[in-house]
Every structure is written in C-alpha cells, then in structure tokens.
C-alpha cells in the first residue's frame, strides 16, 4: 500500500489549514455561499437535504485497518455512528457539522487520508479494479499507475476549475473490472508483443443524462508520456469544454461534437508541445511507485487445505454457497480474494456502523494482511486470504452479517443514496432496493438466475450506474410524483453496453412485480447456461417488454 512521504504529509496538512481558514472566513461572512461552494466541494463537502455530507477519498479503493478504525471513530464522534461506501470507492458521512469538518480532516490526515477533490469540477478520485495485484488475469498491476495519476491530479494548478467533474479509471487486466469505458478518461494497461507496458486511452465515456461509452484516442501510449498526455487532454477540455450549460459540460460532449478523431488530433497537437517536458515520467519514479505494491511474502499452501475445504462444504451448504459466490481465485496458490457483502436485506447498500468498521479492521488484520478494498459495487474485499482460513473467516463474517452469499447476483444491488439523503434526487432509491431484496430473497432462485446486476439511481446523475446494470432502475419525477423507469441489457466491463428503456415508468409498489416479470421472461426463454445479459443480447428488449406490459388476463 502507498505510504505518505514528507511531501504528501506537508500537502495534506497545509490543505487542512487552508480549509480551516476557508470555513472560518465563510462563517464570518467573508466568503459568500457562492464563493464557498466550489471551495468546500473540492474538499468533499456537500450541503445536503438534511445536513452536510462529507465525502472522503479512498484512493483507488485501498484502505488499511488503521484507516478503517479511524473512520469508525469519526462515525462515532462526529456522525450518527455509521458510514456509507459509494460506487466510486469513496466513503461518505451524512451527518457531520460544518464547524467540525476541519477537525475531521485533521483526524484523517493523521492516518494519511483526506477529502481532497472528492467533489467539484476537478479531477476526482482515481478508481480501479478491486482485485488489483491479486487477479489471475492481471497483466499489469494498476495501483502504482493509480498513485502516479493521483499525484498528478492532486492540486493540479491548471485544472481545478474545469467545466465539470472529471473521472479517471485504470484497468490492468484482461477483464475490465473498473468500468473504464464509462469514465471521462479510461486507461487500459496492457503489454505489447515485446512485453512492455502500453496504455490504451479511452476518452469521453460517462453516464448521467447523456450516457456514452468512451472511445479510444490513443492505442499505445508509452508510460513515460502518461502525465503529459493527460495534461494535453485536460487542457483541451478545460479550454473547449462547454461552460454555458451544466448538463452539456462533460468532456463526452466535446468528444461527441468534434468526433473522436478530431478530438484525438487536437489532443495530439497540444501534446506535441508538452511531450518530453518536465512532467515526463521517469523510470526511477515508476520504480518508486511500484515499490509500494510489491507482492507480500505469501506462505506456501498447506497440503490438506483443499481436502478440508471439501469436507467443510460437504457439511455446510451455506459455506459452500458463500464459497461459490463471494470467494474468487487469487493468482497465488493457497490464497483467495473474499468479498464482504455490505448488502444484507434491510440495510441501505454500502452502509456500515462504527462497530462493524472496527470489526472489519480486526478481521483484515487477522486474515488479509491488514488491508481491505472498497469496490464500486459498494462492497469490501479482503484480497489476500489464505484458503486454509476461509472457513474461519466465513464464520466470523456470518456473525457480523457480511457473509450474505449473493455477490454478483440480483441480491447484490448497487444503489445510490437517493431521495432519503440526496438533494438532487427525483425519487427514493434505497426503499426500492430493499423491496426488491425482500421479494427475491430465495437463494436458490437467485443462484438459478445466476450473474445479474441490478443498479438503481435516484436521478439522471446516475450515481447508481443504472445504465450499465443488466437491469437498471432510474427514479424520475412526474409532476411531483416519484416514478421508476426500468431498462435492461446494460453491462459494465470489457463489453460495456448501455441499457435500453423498457417503456413507461412505474409507481414504487409496482417495481418488484415488474422485476419479477423480467426475470420470468428470462427464465422462460434462456438457452442453457445463458446468463441474463446474454439472453438480452440475443433477443433484445421485445419479449421482456411484452410480458412486463401484458394486461392481466
């Protein structure tokens, strides 16, 4: 894991001091609401429907046990005893007091955390694969690259007042688990025929009002040019992105207006001036970043582990289910990556209490080298668990309520905070997620349905990534009433696809029944071994639509 050096510590400390000053000037009336807004947003502070909301950065999702304990402490002392993990690998507190934010930031700085650029029209937290460093299909560990880009983006003097927010995701494996095609910039690390790392640069992806998939503007960027090339992209965006209409201000609109080719040409021209300049990445720097993410000392597998696991699964069906859904292979024999489900029925997806955070910290220390990862599915991952410990870990997780064996199934819903918390919402989203979880709580049915993602957003801003859910639900407002539009066929990852709307929207109480009809349709027409998304791709929306809107006989 990356550890702060003197410069990092200095900058974070100076940021706390700066923000304390800004807060004081605001409270003293020296800064107006309009002036304070962009400043506080760049420190992750929203003024929400009910209270301020503070979003804290978890750089590319990596968090240590010490940091988890500090979040627990903050939840307890400054909030109502819980925290919320978001779809962007960050964590949010929903009830802090404005006056206390600088104190919270100071508490965070002590454990090498901050809220820098977690909101506002600037480059946001860099996101990546939650299985980085341990995935068997990885070609290049994205974490050193994430840290490199994080530092480049942090306090970048030229790009703090962009037309709109700017999100970058990095993937280094065959399967894209970082959804790089729905980010403003997506970076795919791969190796060329000579085995050298190259970067494929996607630009202009994004969800929201105008969902779009990113397009490749450079096939094989050499690593040393990464920063100067990003500078060129951002400069083009900063200068030519639209500022007259907030809904048309993302980079995707420029890419669309000019066409990807022309956009690439303009970037290229700009880059010619920046290339090989002082921001060129040196081998030494790369080595420095890589040195934080070297493989830990893994222990050799014990000879009878697999036999034991077999016996345990035979004796305990629940354990077997959990192994199947929540445990993934690790590139090192004898190890596994375990997903902790933060989605037990009845709890808003991504919410955890202070006590739970502490328990997770303890477990991370016992079972996973003292670290955890936050996933964009709003779960947590222990990336380095010995297979010999799986049964013991499972029992602990079960007691804590984090062993719901539904990862990747319909039960693993992604859901934004929605109308219960968010002032931008058109409709509530959490109660919808809960109603669906309750309606479909039969594990055998969930397993029979197999891999199926269901994503819910409370408005067009699409924080719940509804466009790329196999089933997507969007809260809409019709003359002051909450309705839900349903779409199917979306997918994130290497074969990213945007879903298609089924038809007229529904009242909240109708949603579970509608989902039921979509599932019935799938079960009826699927070919053997065909996943939900494969069926959608084969038959399109028509058969689903027909049954969903069929009049009761």
């Amino acid at each position, binding site marked *: 894991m990356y550890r702060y050096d003197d*410069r990092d510590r*200095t*900058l974070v400390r*100076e*940021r706390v001091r*700066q923000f304390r*000053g*800004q807060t004081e*000037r605001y409270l003293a009336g*020296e*800064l107006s609401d309009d*002036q304070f807004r*962009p*400043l506080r947003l760049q420190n992750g502070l929203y003024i929400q429907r009910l209270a301020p909301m503070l979003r804290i950065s978890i750089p590319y999702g990596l968090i240590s046990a010490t940091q988890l304990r500090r979040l627990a402490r903050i939840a307890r002392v400054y909030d109502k005893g819980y925290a919320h993990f978001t779809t962007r690998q960050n964590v949010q507190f929903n009830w802090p007091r404005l006056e206390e934010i600088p104190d919270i930031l100071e508490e965070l700085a002590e454990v090498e955390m901050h809220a820098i650029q977690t909101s506002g*029209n600037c480059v946001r937290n860099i996101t990546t694969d939650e299985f980085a460093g341990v995935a068997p299909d990885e070609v290049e560990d994205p974490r050193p690259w994430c840290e490199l880009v994080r*530092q*480049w983006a*942090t*306090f*970048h*003097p*030229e*790009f*703090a*007042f*962009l037309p709109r927010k700017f999100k970058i995701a990095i993937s280094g494996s065959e399967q894209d688990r970082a959804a790089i095609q729905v980010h403003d910039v997506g970076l795919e690390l791969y190796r060329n025929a000579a085995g050298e790392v190259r970067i494929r640069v996607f630009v202009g992806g994004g969800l929201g009002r105008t969902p779009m998939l990113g397009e490749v503007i450079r096939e094989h960027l050499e690593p040393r040019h990464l*920063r100067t090339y990003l500078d060129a992209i951002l*400069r083009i965006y*900063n*200068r030519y992105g639209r*500022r007259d209409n907030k809904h048309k201000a993302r980079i995707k609109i420029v890419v669309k207006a000019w066409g990807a080719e022309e956009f690439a040409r303009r970037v290229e021209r700009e880059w010619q*001036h920046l290339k090989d*300049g*002082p*921001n060129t990445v040196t081998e030494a720097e790369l080595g420095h970043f890589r040195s934080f993410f070297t493989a830990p000392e893994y222990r050799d597998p014990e000879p009878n582990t697999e036999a034991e696991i077999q016996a345990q699964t035979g004796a305990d069906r629940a354990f077997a289910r959990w192994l199947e859904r929540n445990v993934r292979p690790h590139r090192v024999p004898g190890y596994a990556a375990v997903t902790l489900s933060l989605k037990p029925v009845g709890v808003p997806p991504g919410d955890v209490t202070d006590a739970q955070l502490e328990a997770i910290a303890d477990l991370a220390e016992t079972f996973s080298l003292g670290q955890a990862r936050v996933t964009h599915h709003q779960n947590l991952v222990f990336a380095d668990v010995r297979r010999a410990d799986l049964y013991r870990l499972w029992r602990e997780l079960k007691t804590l309520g984090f062993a719901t064996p539904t990862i990747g199934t319909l039960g693993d819903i992604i859901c934004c905070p929605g109308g219960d918390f968010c002032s931008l919402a058109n409709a509530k989203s959490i109660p919808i997620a809960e109603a669906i979880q309750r309606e479909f709580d039969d594990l055998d049915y969930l397993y029979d349905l197999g891999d199926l993602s269901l994503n819910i957003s409370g408005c067009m801003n699409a924080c719940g990534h509804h466009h790329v859910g196999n089933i997507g639900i969007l809260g809409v407002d019709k003359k002051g009433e909450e309705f839900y539009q349903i779409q199917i066929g979306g997918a994130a990852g290497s074969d990213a696809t945007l879903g298609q709307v089924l038809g007229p929207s529904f009242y909240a109480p109708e949603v579970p029944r509608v989902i039921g009809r979509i599932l019935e349709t799938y079960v009826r027409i699927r070919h053997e071994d065909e996943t939900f998304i494969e069926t959608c791709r084969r038959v399109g929306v028509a058969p689903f639509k027909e049954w969903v809107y069929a009049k009761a006989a």
Partner: protein
Amino acid sequence: MPRLLRSSGLVEDDWRRLAPEEQDFGGQRILVPLDTWLTHREALLERVPQRIGIWLDGDQEPDAIANDLARFGCIAIHFPAFTDGRGFSCARLLRERYGYCGELRAIGDILPDQLHYLWRCGFDAFELPDEVSLDTALDCLGAFSASYQSAVREAARG
C-alpha cells in the same frame, strides 16, 4: 479602484484599462482589449513599446499575439467568473509556449483562494477586491509549500 497585488506588495494600478469599444488610446500606460489590438494594430504599434499591454478573456486564443509579445509591458487575463478556469490554461500557454516574460495579471472575478494556483500557472500580479485583506491574500498565495506536478514556477526552478 481595485488594488493590485504584486511581488512588491499592494499597489495602485498604474495601467488604464480600455473598455472593449473604446478608441481613446491616450495615457501613460494602456491595457488594450485583444480585439482592439487586432483591429488597430498598426496605429498602436506607434506607441512606445512596454507602455502598451493587452487584456483578454480566458476563452480567447493567445496565439493571436504570440509574435508581438515582446512589445507588451503587461498582459492581463480576465476571469468572467472565478469558476471559469480557462484563464489558467491561457496563462500557461503565454508563459510556456510563447515565452512571455512580462507582467501577467489576473483580473476580473478571482478569489484569494485561487492565488496560489494562479501564481503556479504563471501569473505574477493579481487584482484584489477591496474587501480582501492583504493578510488573507498573502496567506492564500502561500497556501502550499510543495507540489506534485511541474507548472510554470516549478519548470523555472528546473
């Protein structure tokens, strides 16, 4: 009358800024809108070099004056709103691409909280609204003592 923060401290502005349509070119030192310069370049060239300056908006193309930069005693980039960050890029282009070394001013709607980034992008003079104290301005200007990336100041330090 807005005050000007220079490295020498807070000073009275000694440049007269011409409005967009204004054609009275009198005065010791005048700051001419970019468009006026482009239209009246011949006439304005007769002025003593260094006694003329240009002001432009962040969305204007600085390459239009790239070849004349040596004549200007001052260039001011106007921020229509402090949230409009185009001026930051414009400043770096003037400094790094076109090699402008005279005074580079940030004018218009800027917050003291932006001074540090403005300075890093190459500005060395800042128009300050009356309500901002010198203390606040200096504090903001020196908000950070380190940086992660090279912009104008870091490149100069080399």
